[in-house]
């Protein structure tokens, strides 16, 4: 099963209240037993003085330059998943994918020395479920 | 502002909804009344959906989380029968929300 209709997380920055729940729950989802926004695959850029908040996360683009850039094939599309996933054990921490992403949506876990990419939580994104403002939502590409 | 019936004259009261009713907060309704009509009767005559919502939020609960004021004075639900309207009253319905 391939991802014929691309599904991804879209954002509506005007609605974002800057609560960072998305970051906190994302980190816990992928690291049970803790919460640490530095391990989140979604990051909110916040400018408090003007209350301008921007949740930024991978759009699962079909070109996947991240996968193309990886020199050790640590980023692959697993069978049935349809989107590129970072395999942390294989990743050497070179950050080529971080450089390659045109949206700046690849993050880096300093602790684990591995790249961080949204994996869509296997279909039911945790961040979207917890956003109180509909600032992030699931979109299906045309 | 809405009117319940098309009458141009006659005594009427204004009900201001200062909490969400029928999906909106901060709206009002003018209701024609018969002089001496109890407040409870006016509530019962409102449109079915609104009447139901009032019953649910203001009348049925033993200690309703919403309050009713008539001309700036709080009226508890046990008094709705006793309050007789003359036709110029300002009625407001509000949430008992003090989160300051």
């Amino acid at each position: 099963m391939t991802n014929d209709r691309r599904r991804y997380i879209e954002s509506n920055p005007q609605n974002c209240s800057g609560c960072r729940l998305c970051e906190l729950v994302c980190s816990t989802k992928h690291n049970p037993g803790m919460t640490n926004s530095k391990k989140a695959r979604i990051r909110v850029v916040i400018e408090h003085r003007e209350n301008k908040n921007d949740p930024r996360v991978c759009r699962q683009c079909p070109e996947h330059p991240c996968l193309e850039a990886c020199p050790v094939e640590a980023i692959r599309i697993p069978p049935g998943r349809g989107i590129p996933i970072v395999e942390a054990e294989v990743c050497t921490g070179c950050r080529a994918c971080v450089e390659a992403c045109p949206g700046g949506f690849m993050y880096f876990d300093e602790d684990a020395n591995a790249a961080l990419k949204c994996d869509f939580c296997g279909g039911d994104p945790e961040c979207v479920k917890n956003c109180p403002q509909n600032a992030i939502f699931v979109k299906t590409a045309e | 502002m809405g009117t319940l019936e098309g009458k141009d004259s006659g005594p009427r009261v204004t009900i201001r909804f200062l909490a969400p009713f029928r999906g909106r907060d901060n709206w009002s309704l003018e209701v024609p009344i018969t002089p001496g009509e109890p407040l409870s009767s006016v509530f019962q005559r409102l449109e079915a959906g609104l009447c139901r919502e009032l019953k649910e939020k203001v009348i049925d609960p033993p200690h309703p989380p919403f309050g009713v004021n008539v001309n700036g004075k709080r009226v508890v639900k046990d008094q709705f029968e006793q309050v007789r309207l003359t036709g110029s009253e300002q009625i407001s319905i509000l949430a008992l929300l003090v989160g300051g």
Partner: protein
Amino acid sequence: MKLCGYAGKVLDIQLDGEKVVWKTEPLEEKILRRLIGGRGYGAYLLYRLAGPTVKPLDPANPVILSTGPLTGTPLAGSKFVSITKSPLTGLFLDSYSGGELAGEIKYAGYDHIVIRGRCAFPSYLYIENGKIELRDASHLWGQSALDTEETLKKELGSEAKILVTGPAGENLVPFACVCTDYYHQSGRGGVGAVMGSKNLKAVAVRGSGGITLADSAGLERFRLYLIEKFKKSNYGELRVKYGTTYTTVSVSSIGVLPTRNFQQGTFEGIEKINCFTMKEKIWESDHGCLGCQAPCMNFVRGRKGKVRVAGPEYETIALLGSNVGVDDIEAVAWFNELCDAYGVDTISCGNVIAFAMECYERGLLDQKTTDGLDLRFGNAEAVGALIPKIAKREGFGNWLADGVRKAAERIGKGSEHFSIHVKGMEIPGYEPRGAYPMGLAYATATRGGCHRRAKPVEIPKNRFQYDNFGYQGNAEMVKKLQDAREPIHCGILCDALLRFCFEADMKDVADMYRMVVGWEDISAQELSTLAERVYTLTRCYNVREGTRRKDDTLPPRFLHDPLPDGPGKGKIMGDDTLNRMLDEYYDLRGWDRRTGVPTPETIRRLDLEEIVGSLPE
């Protein structure tokens, strides 16, 4: 046993002239279960560090930035609390704030940051995980709190979370606040002045760590449960839509809105400054605290875009709106931004300005004394001119800059009668003559004239039978409302978890502690005892400073004058009513009826002997 939720450390900082000396200490496990964190554990620290020989502006008086095990977790709105001995009251002060700093303190690896001593010249602290540095702040001294934060964000990167004191703090105004994320304040009681007395302009924190969670799967389900509670709640929707400003509607409806220095309980201009007008005229977007499902702050723009601020909260609309006779929401937003920029508490500031206005209208002050300001109620331009003067202690501003108690002492001529404070702390946005239990709440709040311990206004009479114009049942209600806050203020999470938004109960709170920290056997009953313990501990602190029954009182206006309007019209509270409420309250708390001092039995029952020792009578 490894505890989750906590960072596990107290950071103990000594500002020593041109350098900083610091050490970390583990949390004391035998105290931890008894006091948990936040207000509870912070009270323990302050009890040890700032006794009667330490004056509020002495170097030895600590600023303690406290968090709890729940802070920084994805549960509900995270808060931190600034704990110190107040320059305004000389008593225990706990002042809460939202903002990202709450989580960042934990992520940097600390549960509490204790700051003592004094810098030789204007400085700021830079804390990045285990790196603690004292840096030059001479380029920031004199700057507004807002500009200071912006400058530091540019210098340090936006990942640094900053706590700032404004010009008022630098000038040791005893109701100077501290600010973070521009628009969040630890508002009350003068934390900003304590920082100013240390020549400490800011504290910047940056952390790369996280927080361990005992049962993260349980928390995942619990969050969805909280979201459901919110959807089914009575007031959740209103809370998000209007924030605290909806209170303008509810308090007006029972005639307890402070108007013109608490001369009235209703304000004819209320429609022009209520929540609906705010939303319609100046609201732009929502802002939320770290981790909060119900973002309730209103980011507004006013005065043709020249004013932008997250606010005004209800208290600001009351104290700097109806209480000063101003019926223009844009003006109130302007006052809010001025207070944020200069770093003063909007409640105390509004209260003392209203006091000055009443003095002026009564002829106790003339225009020469007020530097030419026409201080009639309603004069918005005068209020806007006066706020900076107070912060800078300029001219007539300096008459007011030490708070309303001192202002009345200076002006005299009977003005003490309408100097509206308890224990020196200016009273906030609820007129107790229309809700007598609120009077008891003010008289017995830990930090003085404060609404954040109990707020017995508009409580539906389900669990409590009380009397808005008598004393029956009031003591029990006030005690229970005070106790309900404690487990959340030790957590520290936002009070919105309670009746007015999520409607979580003590069993829910116990579940939160169980899932975050791993205390399998924690119960609602235990939290109830915790609440009594913390409340009595903070009372012991105040007793040690000299507080007795005679200080648990109200301004003469509240006790002896009737309200001229609203449901309270013509009724006089009287000393007898207050005394009866106090008698019952002290009995419930286990404090001596005569003196208001916690009895030795109570101290023993609440496991406080070790901490408190024996109290003076």
